[in-house]
């Protein structure tokens, strides 16, 4: 098996009559960090939601870690357990403490003993620097802390790939940095990451490649330096000129 951990070929997706993703071809190698950017409504989020099948695609194929995503639901839970995801709205479980948020899936999905799961959770919470908040509830934390907890929660499943769906878009400017720091550390530790974000500073710092999407198509894909220095298509140039 090649070290291509995600392979998307000729993928199309519709919401009703509206085609959101058009002919997507994307390969991601292990340990690569990919940043996906583009105007809103361009299908970025839908694309990464397809990768762990929170959305179903109608045409083409998606192969994650050697398993093709089809309607066979038995596999899907195993694949999802290996693909961590962080959401724009954090989506922590409000009825559970921070620690329980992190240990829930390891205990019930991976059948890990409670003690081990708690140890693991505290390790990851330590990494994102909120171990001291472990006994609090999500509602008592700031947005930045919640998002870091969400990252720790995803990491507790020890995923092979991490997907980030605009992780800083719902945060106050002050809190964006603490979340980005946690993501940078994660990237340095060698995690395979696909990040949908508008934070171009983050893209420049950690991304190996940048993908620009518009109207459901991948318009441009290039090495990070190349992408910012010599964007090829006019659409990319326009986009960059507007946000930089």
């Amino acid at each position: 098996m090649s070290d291509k951990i995600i392979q998307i070929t000729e993928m199309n997706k519709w919401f009703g009559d509206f085609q959101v993703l058009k002919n997507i071809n994307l390969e991601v190698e292990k340990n690569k960090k990919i940043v996906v950017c583009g105007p809103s409504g361009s299908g970025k989020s839908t694309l990464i939601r397809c990768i762990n099948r929170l959305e179903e695609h109608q045409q083409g194929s998606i192969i994650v870690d050697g398993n093709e995503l089809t309607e066979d639901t038995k596999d899907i839970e195993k694949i999802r357990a290996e693909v961590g995801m962080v959401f724009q709205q954090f989506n922590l479980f409000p009825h559970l403490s921070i620690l329980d948020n992190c240990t829930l899936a390891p205990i019930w999905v991976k059948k890990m003993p409670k003690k081990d799961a708690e140890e693991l959770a505290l390790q990851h919470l330590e990494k994102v620097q909120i171990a001291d908040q472990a006994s609090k509830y999500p509602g008592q934390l700031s947005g930045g802390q919640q998002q870091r907890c969400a990252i720790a929660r995803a990491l507790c499943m020890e995923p092979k790939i991490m997907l980030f769906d605009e992780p800083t878009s719902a945060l106050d400017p002050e809190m964006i940095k603490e979340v980005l720091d946690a993501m940078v550390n994660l990237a340095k530790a060698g995690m395979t990451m696909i990040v949908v974000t508008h934070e171009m500073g983050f893209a420049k710092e950690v991304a190996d490649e940048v993908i620009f999407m518009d109207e459901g198509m991948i318009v441009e894909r290039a090495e990070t330096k190349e992408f910012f220095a010599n964007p090829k298509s006019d659409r990319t140039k326009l986009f960059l000129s507007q946000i930089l």
Partner: protein
Amino acid sequence: MMNKLNFLQPDKNNLNTYLYTGVILVSLSIFIVFLNSFFNKDIISFLPGSISFFLPLILGFIGLHLIRIDYSGLKFLDRVNKNINTNNFNAFLSLLIVFVIIKSLPPLLSWFILDANIAGDSKDVCTGSGACWTYIKIWFNRFMYGMYPNAEQWRINLSFIALASLGTIGFFATEKFKKYLTLYYVVVYPVIAFFFIFFFISGGPIFFDFSYGIIAAVISVIIGFFIPSKFKMYYFIIVPITLYILLKYVFFYEELIELGKLEALEWVETGAWGGLSLTFIVSFFCLIFCFPIGLFLSLGRRSDFPVIKYFSIGMIEFWRGVPLITVLFMSSVMFPMFLPEDMFIDKLVRVIIAISLFEAAYVAEVIRGGLQALPRGQYDAAKSLGMGYWKMHILVILPQALKLVIPGIANTFLALVKDTPLIFVVGLLEIVGMLNLAKTNPEWLGFAMEGYVFASVLFFIICYAMSKYSYNLEQKYKTER
């Protein structure tokens, strides 16, 4: 007008004068009403009729106006001003309410206590104008136990005490057993309750089924301690049932047929059950059955599988669309016609199934409201962590949704408890049914009022306890946000 009144407002300097005048006026007005109401003395009768009627209100109103001040530093005065004396309209309403209470106390007191009778044991002692509690005293036993034989009523008491104490286990469970509590309350407890009520209270040869059940359960729990936890799940399903069948059909069968005639508890058919104990039995079983059924219907209605979805919608809409009284009637009259000749399902069981299904439809819609209130992100997050449908619902969705709908569920359950009297249509007489029976007894005609008051008080106590409990639950799970 306002300006004119404003000069009557107290301020810091002349507070005392205003305060004394105001308090005297208010006290005087209350005193007048009090005398009038309790001692029938009208000390202002020298005034013309309409003025003497309104005088207390006017005096009190002026008094309250005089003592109204933003902040006086006197604790009691400030509290009064803040709560009942914020403006002229509120002061007027407060006075009116106080007067109505004072006015209505004497007749209520005299009916309930002063002129009431409780001594003696026949209706002849009830000569006063008040309530005849003797009637309740004499019929108390019937109101509690219906037609259940007096000598056997200890069985009902014992069952209720046993179930009540088994129900409190949750408060004493140690940390180690806490995680089994849900299993206990959802599966084990209802089964125990079922055995107690249908075998122990019912009695007869069937009582031995109960004993086999107990023996099988005890033996399997004892062996259960030595079983590796890996197999416990299967063990606790298979072994008790096997033991039960062995006990019933292999080991004891011959002997117990003989014994059964000698030693079994006397059989009391469900038609003889009644009174408050039947209210409890019906409510209890309907509550514990309608909840899981409603839960599954609500999940089913949101299912992706058309068969499950439309079945759930059909069930919900059907049961919501028919009146309970017709459902009960059909369960007793129509339903047996569709059963094979030799098949017999007890009347009480049929009633409990009917009410459970009926209320389950309401519970389902209440729960669905909670499910829909959850943001889609919760589903996404649970799925992205690799949880399947059941794990997602049990661990993430339902704990939140159910917490949201505690008030709605409590509402449905209260309605259920108060719907139980309807079972009179199939001839089961719980407490209100017994009242209706007792009030037509020729020796005790004319005491319907006492009976209904009595039942109202009982229902109020039950329902208020439930509503308090649901409120406590709400507070208990209000850990976040």
